């Protein structure tokens, strides 16, 4: 048994039995973990209000040898996320960000960069960055950190500049010029290339000033979705639910 303490972002909260909850969370040093918060289903539990999707907490937990679930022993709220959980889009986006992280972060491996990505994305959403822009930026970097989504550079085959459009080939691993890409892969239009180039050099809060159109964001979403599906060999549930929910509303 080992007591641990870290700053954490809450990824999921589920009821367990009559009184407890299972909490999934992300830390820098210990990566993605799950633990049981005893008594957290009770209304007056000191945990109840703190365990909120994407809130940042100071978490203490007990690691138990050979057990899949840690025991959460203390939660102190550092940064609530209710600022953007009050709308349908906000809730769906939050669920999608959280599930993405869980899908890409194997449990128990350090996740310094992924933690920073999620933390800054939540920070930007709370500061009023549009969910569309923030989510596309997050997707691009999430895939980049997984090693499957290259940022634009001259075509690795012929050395040509890619500004006029490109193709994403090899399951999302290389970005080549249209001439070298052949019929396979995904078409990357110029405005999506511009987004990828900007995401490579700018922090999220400065992306808003670049003035990306809805069409550019849609193109980036299409690409990221194709790459993610290829990488995970399946689609994230929250992405499907988000699409179905917003389409009907």
């Amino acid at each position, binding site marked *: 048994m080992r007591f641990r303490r870290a700053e954490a972002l809450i990824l999921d909260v589920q009821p367990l039995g009559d009184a407890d909850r299972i909490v999934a969370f992300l830390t820098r040093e210990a990566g993605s973990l799950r633990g049981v918060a005893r008594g957290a289903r009770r*209304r007056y539990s000191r945990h109840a209000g703190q365990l909120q999707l994407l809130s940042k907490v100071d978490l203490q937990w007990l690691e138990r040898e050979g057990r899949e679930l840690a025991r959460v022993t203390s939660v102190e709220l550092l940064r609530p996320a209710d600022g953007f959980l009050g709308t349908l889009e906000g809730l769906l986006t939050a669920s999608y960000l*959280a599930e993405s992280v869980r899908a890409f972060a194997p449990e128990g491996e350090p996740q310094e960069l992924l933690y920073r990505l999620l933390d800054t994305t939540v920070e930007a959403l709370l500061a009023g960055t549009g969910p569309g822009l923030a989510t596309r930026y997050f997707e691009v970097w999430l895939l980049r950190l997984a090693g499957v989504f290259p940022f634009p550079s001259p075509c690795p085959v012929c050395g040509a500049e890619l500004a006029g459009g490109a193709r994403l080939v090899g399951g999302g691993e290389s970005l080549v010029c249209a001439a070298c890409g052949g019929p396979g892969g995904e078409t990357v239009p110029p405005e999506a290339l511009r987004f990828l180039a900007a995401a490579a050099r700018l922090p999220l809060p400065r992306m808003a000033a670049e003035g990306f159109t809805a069409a550019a964001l849609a193109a980036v979403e299409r690409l990221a979705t194709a790459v993610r599906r290829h990488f995970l060999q399946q689609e994230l549930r*929250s992405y*499907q639910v988000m699409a179905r929910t917003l389409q009907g509303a």
Partner: protein
Amino acid sequence: MSDPLSRLVGELARLPGIGPKTAGRLAHHLLRVPEAQARELAAAIVEVKEKLFHCSRCNAITAVDPCRFCADEGRDRTRICVVEEPFNIQPIERTGEFRGLYHVLLGALSPQRGIGPDELAIPQLLARLDGVEEVVLATNPNVEGEATALYLARLLRPRVAHVTRLAFGMPVGGDIEFTDEVTLARSLAGRREL
């Protein structure tokens, strides 16, 4: 074919909120109770399966169709209270704050578990709106319940004069099941336009 004890443990462990350890404890407890008591339990389980079903109008659990809420002419038919599960009705009834009809969605939107609007009893709700002036959204104050309420509010606002939400006065994370009667009564009385 597994031995009888493992079979019982296996069946109990399939119940929500019961892990293998608790299932084992319950099974050993049942081994010790008088045979008549064990038969009562088995008969009670079979009886609910044989006699109870979901009301064809509101999805409440009932032995007659329509259920006692839908059949009661004394209830206010201009209001419908929407809940996630049939067991959410009783706590609301106990408060005495609501005298309208109910509608059970049989779940809530749950993005991370892949439960979308198509999995919920929403079309049946939309088909019941004739003459309805208020829909009270009494889904749980957690991510799933809030998403469901916000989604329903968008669908209902063009069709119903008042779409209201319980005023829980607490951050996302709670459960109607574990809300005491006084708090629930206050949430109902203080419900707000969504």
